């Protein structure tokens, strides 16, 4: 059971750095911020970024709210229509394609392009040797180049 919980924690480990990034843009005391931080989902987090290090809090809530409803509906459909073959429909390509779309809009300069390439390379190199989730977390370390390069 410890292994299962550990695996689940690793898969969501990327939300840890995302939370630190988001923190100052939320409101209220620490508990309230921790609750507001529950709205952190990859796509809404990335798209709520304003590009100056701040995040659009209302946008994050709206996007995550809609995504949550659709996610639950999708799960319900999957449970009640077992004949639906998501692989045959190519639905597993939807998430990477969508993330790629956000990434393309995001990469506006050479620095971001370099960070994206480095992150992708690090993740791919780690996939065969690390448990799922860890490659993405380590890839996030590519952003640490920001500590050295003045904008």
């Amino acid at each position, binding site marked *: *059971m410890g292994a299962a*919980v550990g695996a*689940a*924690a690793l898969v*969501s*480990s*990327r*939300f*840890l750095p*995302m*939370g*630190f990034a988001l*923190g*100052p843009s939320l409101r209220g*005391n620490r508990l309230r*911020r*921790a609750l507001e*931080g*529950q709205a*952190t989902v*990859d796509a809404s987090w*990335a798209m709520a*970024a304003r*590009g100056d*290090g701040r995040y659009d809090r209302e946008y994050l809530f709206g996007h995550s709210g809609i995504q949550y409803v659709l996610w639950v509906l999708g799960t319900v459909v999957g449970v009640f229509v077992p004949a639906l073959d998501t692989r*045959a429909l*190519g*639905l*597993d*390509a939807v*998430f*990477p*394609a*969508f*993330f*790629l*779309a*956000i*990434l393309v809009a*995001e990469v506006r300069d050479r620095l971001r392009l370099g*960070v*994206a390439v*480095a*992150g*992708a390379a*690090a*993740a791919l190199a780690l*996939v065969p*040797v690390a448990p*799922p989730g860890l*490659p*993405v977390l380590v*890839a*996030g*370390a*590519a*952003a*640490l180049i*920001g*500590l050295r390069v003045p904008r």
Partner: protein
Amino acid sequence: MSAATWWVLVALCVVTTALTRGVGPAATADRELPPAAVRVVVLLSSALLAALVVTSALADGTDLRIGADTAGVAVAGLLLWRRAHVLVAVVAAAAVTAGLRALGVG
């Protein structure tokens, strides 16, 4: 595993995922991040999104494999590069993936 064990597992997963999302905002509170940290934050999404794209398009657990979905995502990338709309790219990715599988590829 018994039903009770499953529910304990679910509860523990809920706690860990809530912690990973809540710790950051609770720690920063209303303090502004120092300029160097802001530069890291601005770059973080590029690194994480790129990693999510390659791991979901190329990895199956701990196996790297090129499949129909890889081709679908590549087509989406090409369309996005040619400034296609997000929806067009996403639908094309699913259509190409489904088409290749229907043909028995990947």
